[in-house]
């Protein structure tokens, strides 16, 4: 029997950028203001025929070969049996090596305690068979969640049916967060600033 691998699949054709996931996550996990475990980036694209609005949810990718775990000097960052990357706050010394190592910029530091926080796949829920808050609240059911290694799970069936792509696949980190339509969207020229929620993270060049 293969080991369990919790993962998420996000269909970019279905994400409307409403940010309900970001709000649900903040409320469920008590994420401090200005920090986000999950967020949505939005921008205008040119499809060749018309202008459309892209929305890309992002979060910790819970990599199998997680660089944040590798660089952690105290063992505070670790992977669970289900493949979820977590931070043991007791062991975290706030050195922020993990933040520098993460190519997804998914980690943040708590300004009050100095400890590093991140998405846990709502481990307090998902380890009891519940969906993470962002998945259960998603208005358009753009996020799938479950055991990628169980061929009978909804997420595994969806991956088998439509395929999937990972962010920065060339880094070989084996992320557990996958997308539908990623390269198609990434291939479209960007025709506005990129917003995170409603705040600019990358102005339009030119």
């Amino acid at each position, binding site marked *: 029997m293969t080991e369990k691998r919790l993962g998420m699949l996000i269909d970019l054709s279905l994400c*409307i950028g*409403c940010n309900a996931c970001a709000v649900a996550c903040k*409320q469920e996990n008590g994420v401090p203001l200005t920090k986000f475990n999950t967020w949505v980036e939005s921008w205008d*694209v*040119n499809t060749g025929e018309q202008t*459309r609005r892209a929305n890309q949810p992002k979060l910790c990718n819970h990599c199998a070969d997680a660089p944040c775990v590798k660089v952690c000097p105290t063992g505070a960052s670790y992977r669970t049996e289900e493949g979820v990357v977590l931070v043991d706050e007791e062991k975290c010394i706030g050195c922020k090596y993990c933040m520098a190592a993460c190519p997804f910029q998914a980690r943040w530091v708590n300004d009050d305690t100095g400890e590093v926080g991140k998405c846990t796949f709502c481990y307090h829920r998902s380890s009891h068979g519940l969906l993470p808050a962002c998945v259960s609240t998603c*208005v*358009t059911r753009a996020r799938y969640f479950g055991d990628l290694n169980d061929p009978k799970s909804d997420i595994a069936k969806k991956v088998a049916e439509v395929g999937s792509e990972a962010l920065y696949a060339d880094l070989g980190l084996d992320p557990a967060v996958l997308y539908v339509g990623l390269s198609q969207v990434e291939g479209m020229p960007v025709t506005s600033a990129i917003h995170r929620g*409603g*705040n600019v993270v990358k102005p339009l060049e030119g």
Partner: protein
Amino acid sequence: MGAFPGSNGKSFQGIAKRTLDRLQTGECTIDVVDPVLGNGCVTPTAKGITWVPIKTATNAAFALGIVRKILEDKTYNATFLSYPNYQSAFAGGFASYTNASHLVIVDENHPNYRKLMRAADAGLEEPPADPKATTPVPYYVVIDQATGQPAIHTQSDAAQFEYEGEVNGVKVRSSFLFLKDNAFEHTLDEYAEITGTSVATMERIAKEFVSHGTKASARLGFGGSATANGTTGVLAYPALNGLIGSAQMTGGCNCYRIGSKTTTDGDRYKLATVKGKPAVSAKNATYICRTQKLFSQTDEYKARVAAGEKDPKPKLPWLNVPSTSDNQALVSIVNEYPYQAKILVSWMTNTIQASSGALRDSVIEKLKDTSVVPLHIACDAFIGEHAQLADYIVPDTTPFESFGLVTQEGYWRGKGNTVRWQAKQPSTIELSDGRFASFEAFCVDVAKACDMPGFGDNAIEATDGTSYPLNDAADFFLKAVANLAFAEEPVADVRDEDVKLQALDELPAAWKEAVTPEEWPKVLNVLSRGGRFWPIETSQKNGRSAYAKEYLIQYYSEKKALNKNPYSGVHPDAALRYVPEDFCDRTPIAEVYSEQEWPFRSTNYKPRFRSISMQANSPIMRDLCEKNYLELNLDDAAELGIKDGDTVRITNPTGDVMTGEAMVRAGIARSTFGVAYGYGHHAYGAQDAEIDGTLAKGDPAIAAGVHLQTMLDPMLEDGVIYPHADSDAGSPGRSGGMYNIEKA
């Protein structure tokens, strides 16, 4: 048009979910005609959805381009258009009818010129009056298709809708011809130029729209009506649906907002009946917002004419189209017309923030002036821009601390009412009798002090004749829930599991006492479900909504036709026509101010992270989005030398100045700028406030962003403050107008 699935609408969630589900399976295609590309269902890889960037305030022109194409190709449903009454249309399988075939008197010398022809005008005998009818039934005249002779509209099964000639010696034309004239006023090329879209787009949509029988629908948007020519845009939707007969049809423009009787006279309690209620209505009184009447129907007009004045002009426009209007009430109050508001009681409202053009010093000064508004009491949970100008603020409950019964909102074809009930004890002060401060408690106490009927002991009558008191919110709303629980077939009693799971046995004793022991378990059942919803399978019948009622689409509106403008004497168009934005005397705004000097229009749209006047106090919402932007098209920005992130200054002919950060993007139509509303607060927590001697410091982050300031109407007498509005409906000219943009 004017609504963006996945970006806004009621309910936003339901629309977003179902739209994407059906697009994915190829069950539907959608064109979203909107000046701004919102975050929504137009995602890069969604199938079957197209964003059509339209120039702001030209919705009617776009619709008429489609209408013209359908008329040219004769692809409309001629059978449907020839039904002159509901009964014959219903027998033909439809659920609506039009007045396309009804004749209009076009003889300028006839006393009923511009009116729809009545039986008497045609020398036809009216059927005997129905003894049960409470109001006189009008009998219109059509040309019967079979006989070619004039007939009363209820006595013909099919009538000609393109008739022009004489009846009883009177020159007449059928209503449909007025639409046809207006549609052919411009070529498709001209409509493409006016709207900033293309002939190919209008032709494609026209072809698609008529290719599915009654299973196509043009839907009423929300923002589309908030322009100074919004009424014409609103008329576009029924005009299009009337060409295919899709109103109230399954898969077409289905019925929605269907609910049961709750806070009115219902199955258990007569909640709308007040014994001894003063007989005040629009018939013998006048709304301060000047609605439901033409100026010529007012006492003022009659008095001024009697005094010898010729063609008197009102201080502010009168609006016979809407029932009421909050932004126009505000305008009336600050201008003390048609009468002074000696006591202003406002509840849960922030009109000066919510009405574009009203958040200005001149309006604020008037509201502060005790000679203009001698007493202003606001009841609110928040101290917004409006409430902070009040003499007294009565604390109110929030939605989590109060009751509400509403009809299920949104494009949902079923029947049901949602119930909101106190989820927590109110945080307002507790009164000496155990009630909490709230709008309801305030109303009851003031009414009792003034000896008003309908409050206190024996205020509410049950349908069995028993009387009940009304002293607090629960006394009223639990009875409304009982009305809902007993509508048609009463619901079952609540199950013990639900009582235990939801701790319903811990609800306040006053709730149980508000209804009978028989009603209480059924009331609990409804509370436990958050409302009552009828089975969706029963919502449709024989291709129609089961809730379909007689429904008329007017291609010629007599009400509009007779709405002579008192300032200029101009009669507005009775049929859908593209009319550029105008001022209150119907002078086009482009004739008053130069389009070269003021080349931009505004598109003021619903924000993702705020509401119209609220949410800026939410730290999470501010975290997600600290401010709004002034959104500019790539090409417009390039011409102006503006880059993304630059600070830009926007001005209008009234002298208003707005400064904000530019967001340069492809996702906005040319010649407009987008700005989400709900930002740029002055109060609502942005200001310092002293409450009972304690200073609450304001948070400047709440004030971030730009509040759109629309221009004032310059066509009224000096000193009158009248933000630019639609001349028929009085809705604020939120989108459109005239602006100049420059790099700051």
